[in-house]
C-alpha cells in the first residue's frame, strides 16, 4: 500500500472508474431533469467561487477541520488501532477549550493558549480511555472508542444545556468565549488562522510517520501486531502514546472550531457536520498514505460545499449531491481498496518450495 503503487496504478482502470462516475452522475442529473452544465458550474462556484472567494474560504475552513480529523485518525489507523472515536475526542476538545476560555481570567493570548492545550489534553484523555479499556480490560479499540463517543456527546449537551447555557440566546449553547481570544482572520480573507495550525500538524504528522523511530515502530505494529510483539516492540506503550497523539489532534480541531468558527460551544456543532466520520473516510480513501491525507480531506470539503452550491444554482437537491458523493466514494474506494484491504501477499514460492 505504498504511495508508488497508488500513483502508478493502471491509468486505464482509473479512466474507466472516472468514466463510470461521470456516467452515473449524468444519469442522476437526467433523472431529476437538472441542467448538467449549470449544475457543474454551481458546483465549482460553490466550492471555489463566491464574492471575494467567500465560498472558497468556506471550503478551506471546512477542509481545515476535516483534514485535522483525518490526520488524527491516520495516526491511529497506521498503528493498527481502529480508533473510530474521533468524534468523542473532538467533542471533548471543543467543549473543554470553550469552557476553559469562558471561565479562565487573564490575558487573552494566555487564555487562548491554555484553552487550546486543555482541549488537546481532553481529546488525548478521551482517546487514552479507549486505549486503557483495550490494553487492561480487553475491550477492542474499535468498540471502546466508538462507544465512548456517546457519553461525551451527552455530557457536552448537558453542560451547555444547563450549567453553562447562554440562556438569553435561547439556544442550547454556551456563552461566547471572550472576543479577544477569537482566532484572527488571515489578511484580506474571511478565513481564520486555524488552517495554519492544521498545516503545521499536517507537516508534523507526515514527518512523524515517515521519519521518526516512533512512527516507524507504530507502523510495524499496524502492519502486523504479532510481528511487532515478537520482535519486542513496546506494543502497549506504542498503543497508548499513539492514541494520545490522535486524541490531542482531535482536541485541537475541536478548539479550532470553537475559537475560529463558532466562538462558543453549540450543542451538536461538532457532531452534525460529521467531521470525524468524513475524516475517517478521507483517510481510508487514500489507503492511510500520510502525504495524501490533506489532499483527500480537501477533496471531501470541496464535494460538500460544492454540493451546496449546486443546490443553489441548479436546484439539484442536496440529497442528490450526497448520493453523488457516495457514488464517488464507492468508486474511488473500489479502486483504492485493493491497496487497502487486500489480504497480505502470500508467498507463493512457499508452496513451490515445500
Amino acid at each position, binding site marked *: *500500500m*505504498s504511495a508508488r503503487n497508488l500513483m502508478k496504478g493502471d491509468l486505464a482502470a482509473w479512466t474507466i472508474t472516472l468514466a463510470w462516475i461521470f456516467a452515473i452522475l449524468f444519469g442522476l442529473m437526467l433523472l431529476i431533469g437538472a441542467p448538467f452544465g449549470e449544475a457543474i458550474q454551481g458546483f465549482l462556484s460553490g466550492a471555489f467561487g463566491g464574492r471575494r472567494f467567500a465560498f472558497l474560504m468556506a471550503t478551506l475552513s471546512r477542509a481545515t477541520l476535516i483534514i485535522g480529523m483525518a490526520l488524527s485518525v491516520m495516526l491511529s489507523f497506521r498503528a493498527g488501532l481502529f480508533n473510530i472515536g474521533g468524534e468523542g475526542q473532538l467533542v471533548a476538545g471543543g467543549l473543554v477549550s470553550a469552557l476553559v476560555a469562558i471561565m479562565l481570567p487573564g490575558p487573552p493570548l494566555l487564555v487562548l493558549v491554555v484553552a487550546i492545550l486543555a482541549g488537546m489534553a481532553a481529546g488525548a484523555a478521551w482517546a487514552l480511555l479507549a486505549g486503557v479499556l483495550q490494553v487492561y480490560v480487553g475491550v477492542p479499540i474499535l468498540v471502546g472508542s466508538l462507544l465512548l463517543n456517546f457519553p461525551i456527546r451527552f455530557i457536552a449537551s448537558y453542560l451547555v444545556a444547563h450549567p453553562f447555557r447562554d440562556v438569553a440566546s435561547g439556544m442550547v449553547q454556551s456563552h461566547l468565549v471572550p472576543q479577544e481570544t477569537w482566532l484572527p482572520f488571515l489578511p484580506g480573507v474571511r478565513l481564520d488562522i486555524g488552517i495554519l495550525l492544521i498545516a503545521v500538524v499536517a507537516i508534523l504528522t507526515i514527518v512523524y510517520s515517515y*521519519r*521518526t*523511530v*516512533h512512527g*516507524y*515502530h507504530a*507502523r*510495524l505494529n499496524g*502492519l*502486523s501486531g*504479532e*510481528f*511487532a*510483539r*515478537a*520482535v*519486542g*516492540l*513496546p506494543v502497549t506503550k506504542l498503543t497508548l502514546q499513539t492514541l494520545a497523539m490522535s486524541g490531542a489532534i482531535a482536541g485541537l480541531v475541536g478548539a479550532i472550531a470553537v475559537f475560529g468558527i463558532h466562538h462558543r460551544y453549540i450543542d451538536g456543532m461538532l457532531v452534525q457536520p460529521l467531521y470525524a466520520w468524513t475524516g475517517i473516510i478521507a483517510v481510508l480513501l487514500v489507503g492511510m498514505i500520510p502525504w495524501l491525507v490533506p489532499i483527500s480531506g480537501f477533496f471531501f470539503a470541496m464535494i460538500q460545499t460544492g454540493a451546496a452550491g449546486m443546490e443553489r444554482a441548479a436546484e439539484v437537491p442536496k440529497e442528490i449531491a450526497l448520493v453523488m458523493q457516495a457514488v464517488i466514494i464507492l468508486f474511488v474506494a473500489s479502486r483504492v481498496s485493493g491497496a487497502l484491504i487486500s489480504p*497480505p*501477499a*502470500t*508467498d*507463493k*514460492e*512457499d*508452496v*513451490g*518450495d*515445500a
Partner: protein
Amino acid sequence: MHAALHGIRVRFGPLVAVDDVSVDIAAGKILAVVGENGAGKSTLMNVLFGLIKPDAGRVEVDGRDRQWSSPQDAIKAGLGMVHQHFMLQEDMTVLENIVLCGEPVKWFGMVDFAAARRKLADGFSQHGIAIDLDAKVGSLAVGQKQVVEILKMLYRDASVLILDEPTAVLTPQEKDRLFAILRSFAAAGKSIVIITHKLDEVMEIADHVTVMRGGKLVSSLPLGETSKDRIAREIVGGELPPPIRAAAREPGNIVLSVKGLTVAGQGTQVGPVDFDIRQGEIVGIAGVSGNGQAELIQALAGLRPTASGVIELGGKRIEALHVPERRLAGLSYIPEDRQRVGLALGATVAENANAGRDDVGAFSRGPFIDRTAMARFARSLIDRYRIKVRGPASLASTMSGGNKQKLVVGRELSRETPLVIAENPTWGVDIGAIELIHTELMRMRDSGHAVLLVSTELDEVLRLSDRVLVMYSGLLSEPIPAAKADRNTVGRLMTSRSGDARQAA
C-alpha cells in the same frame, strides 16, 4: 457404499502434492490415512470430497466415475467430511446447526424441527449418542462440537465419512466416545476415513492403513498385515541426509533452564516440562505439530503467559518479563510463521531488518530514523545471508519464501544472543535456503551459543541436534543423545505414549 480414488495427482505450482495415489474405501470399514505433515493426506481427501480438483486420476463412487464441481455434489452423493477446524455457527443451537442447509421444510417454508428431531432420535439410539439438541453450540466442549459435526453427516445420511485429524483437540475420554460412535457407524455399513498421524489411534481403531510420504503412497495394508513399527518406519522413510556436524564438542554452562513449566494450551495444558540447554549445543524438540510445541515456544519467547514453573536465561528468571526485556536478556526468536510473525510484509526489507534491534541508536538520530543506516544494515544482512531481493527498499512481500526466511534468520542471528529459539526454521523453503539456515545454526552452536530447535521435520532435528527431546501430548520425553537418536526411536515417541516417554511427569 464403496468409494475409490484412482491414480490421483494434484499439483500446486511446481510442487506435486499428491502423486499417482489410489485408495480404496470399503463399506463398513475404517480406513486410516497416515503420514507426516505435508505428506499429502489432507489434499488427497479434499479431492475425494470435491474441495480440490485433481490434475489427473478419477473419483469412483459405487462403481461410477464422478466429477465433483463442488463439495455440494459430493455431499449429495453421500460423502461427508469433518474438517480439523469445525464449521459450526456458535450462536445457534445444536439442532439448528445440524439441519443447516438441509432443513426439512413444512408449509410456507417453515422449518419442521419436529421431523428433524424424530430423525435424529433414531440415530441417537442406534449409535449411543447423547447430546442436548437445544444447547447453544458455543457452550459445548470441543468433543461435543465434534459430535455435532458428525451428527450433521448422520442427518444427511452420509455413507462415507472423512475425518481430518479428528482427535487433535480431544481429551482421551472424548476420543474414546468418538471412536465408539465411529465403530457403530462402521457396523451400520458406513465407510469411515480418518486422517491422522497418531499411531496409537490407528492401531486402536483402523481396519486398513494407508501410509503416505511426500505425496506418494507408501503402503496400503489391512491392519493385521502391518505393525506399528513398520508404519512408523514408513511414515518417516528414506535415508537421513549426511550429518553436517563438526566434531562433537563439550557443551559449556547452562544458558536456558526450564523447570516445571506449564502453559495453558487450546483446551489442554502443556507441560509440565523440564529441560536445560547449554552453551555450544543444539537441543532439538521433535514432534508432530499440535502437541504443544507452539505453546511452549510462545511461553519461552514471552508471547504467551506461563501457568507455572520457572524459566531461567543466563541465571536470570525471565518468566514474568515482557518480550523486549527477554530479548535484551539474551534471546532471539525465529518464528514459524514468517508471513505474520517473522516479518511485516507491507514494510520494506530495511524496515524489517531493523525491527527489534537492541541498538536503536545505531539507526536513529534523536527521534528520527536514519534510513541510510537502516539500509546499510539491511544490505549487510542481504550480503551475509545471500538474500535475493532487489534491495533494502523493496517490500518484504516481494521476496520468495526462502529469502523471506533468510531475512528473518539473519535478523535474529545477527543479534548474537546467548540463546536462539528456532521454530520450524526451514518450513516450506527451498533446499538452498535450508542448507544456509542449517549451516548458520551450526555456526551459532560452534561459536558457543545455545540453540533450541523445534521442528516437525524429523530429519532436521536429527541432522542438527546434539540432544533430542520428543514432544507428545504436551509432554517432553527424556533427552536422547544424538548418537542414540535414530528415526525409529524418535518416530515411535512422536506418535505414541509408549517407549520411555515421561508420561507421568
